[in-house]
């Protein structure tokens, strides 16, 4: 038994969207479907503003609402903790889309593509694998994990902000990273939307130090603003 988890270190994320693209290439998703998004959050009012990059993906919750809400029993949880949508059982009812409190389940009635004519990649690799009118979501790249590879977004991240591994194995990269950060920076991993009580396996480490929200002295823009 394992408990696969992804840790996203928000201190390291630079919002480059490499994960988004790597995911898109690996999973061959149609137009507008993004399993690994990066939210560019602008917070505050001028001049006290800051930008936070928040990579979001399926949280592979232990108490997954999509799984409980699916009327076709098409969503299941593997023993290693990965929550998958069975593409053959799914009938496109759309219950999971509303059920997911994170908005990470995608349901497109008919796929659209970026190019007018198929390249070999779409024709031979992507399109034959995709069922139409079924719900899709991030799989933690289960097909790669089964071959002992890391998910595509983890491999692609230039700042290694994403760390993937087995939380129950103390020697896994993610366990080591959590232990290291706990002792050196005092940061504890947290989950998104803890009030939803979904017990996600995707967890986050917060930004390390509060940086000055403006590089100019306080009040120097006051006159301009008036």
């Amino acid at each position, binding site marked *: 038994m394992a408990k696969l988890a992804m840790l996203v270190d928000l201190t390291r994320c630079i919002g480059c969207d490499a994960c988004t693209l790597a995911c898109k290439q690996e999973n061959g998703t149609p137009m507008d479907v993004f399993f690994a998004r990066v939210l560019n*959050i*602008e*917070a505050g009012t001028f001049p006290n503003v800051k930008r936070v990059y928040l990579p979001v993906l399926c949280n592979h919750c232990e108490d997954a609402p999509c799984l409980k809400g699916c009327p076709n029993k098409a969503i299941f949880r593997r023993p290693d903790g990965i929550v998958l949508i069975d593409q053959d059982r799914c009938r496109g009812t*759309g219950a999971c889309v509303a059920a997911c409190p994170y908005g990470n389940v995608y349901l497109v009635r008919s796929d659209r593509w970026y190019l007018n004519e198929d390249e070999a990649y779409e024709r031979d690799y992507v399109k034959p694998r995709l069922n139409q009118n079924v719900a899709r979501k991030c799989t933690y790249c289960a097909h790669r994990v089964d071959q002992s590879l890391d998910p595509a977004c983890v491999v692609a991240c230039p700042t290694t902000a994403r760390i993937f591994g087995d939380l129950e194995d103390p020697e896994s990269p993610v366990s080591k990273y959590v232990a290291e950060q706990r002792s050196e920076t005092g940061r504890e991993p947290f989950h998104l939307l803890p009030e939803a009580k979904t017990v996600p396996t995707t967890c986050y480490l917060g930004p390390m130090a509060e940086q000055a929200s403006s590089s100019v002295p306080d009040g120097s823009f006051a006159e301009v603003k008036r």
Partner: protein
Amino acid sequence: MKLALAVLSVAALAGTLLAQPKVATPAPSKDVFSTTACVGCHGVSAMGGLGPPIAKTKLTDEQFMTILRKGRGMMPGTKPDMLSDQDAAILHAQLREMPWDPTQIPLAFKVGSLLTTRNVALFFLFVSLFALVFAVRVLAYWAGNAGLRRLGPKIARFGRGRAAWVFVRSLVVDGLLVASVWRKDRVRWLWHGLILYGFLGLMLADVLMQIFNPTRADVALTHPLKLLPLLSGAAVFTGVLYVYVRYRTDRFIDNGVTLGRDFLFVNLLFHTVLSGFLTMWLNQGGAAGWIMPIYIYHLTSVGLLIATSPFTRFNHAFVAPFLAACTALTEAIVQDEKDLGFLREPSPGRDHKSQRIAEGLLRTIDRDSPDAIRIRYYP
């Protein structure tokens, strides 16, 4: 409605019992009582079993015959081909002569006497209210996940009437008609329909029964009030049998989380329908001794089925249509907003859900969380 009818019927019953009895009939010439099915419920000494004591009965001939032929409450009617008018008269006389012995009133009658139409109605009222409270809680949980509260201002912009139309339309099309299964698998739709529409038929039959025949006086099997539950029950039973087959043959029926709760629902449904059929069959056959225990078993199954409905797989009956309607509503609203930057939103609701996540994150990482948050761009 159910309760009012139950009260009315109890009042009517009391009126009948208080009516002045007629006296004097010939003494019984032979023993009819112990050869009839009456013994099953009313006891060998007619001092009651699961039915009431009927020794020293004070019913008039007319009342006696009406009850005997039409039945009352749980008591089935007895047709002339089972007991002739002549024998019935002798039976009546015999009962009047039978000794009244209070020590013979069995404990079982005290249990059985609690099962009046009114008490059964009250029991189901209580069970239904219990289930309703938890069902509302379950729906509130899903509404929270779907972020319906955040959708409020958007619904106002979209138009409340329009939103209600989209929601109700989805409830009917995706819920009642199960359009998604219809599109992908007609055979599965039929099996599912057997259970879904059969169950609705049973519920409708029960309501009709409360309105047109609240004392459950016996009606013929070909009467619509009997035909509807019979056919509906047969449909549900067939569907449930197929589900059992699927539990044996489907390798992927276990999603790793909900199997126990799923199976509980299927089992309760099976026991409910089976005991319902058994009750009806025994009622026709006149094997009266078994009717009461099996009827109690049936009532218990139905009660458990309703009481556990918010927690077992039964909840998909209202959760799945609700969620599908939430998705349809969100999709319609998002499609309506012109500043999206998408031709079509592939995950309806992710914009307001992302906003909720962002606000939650800033509360976590920033003590004095900023008031204005905007997600500048998301793919």
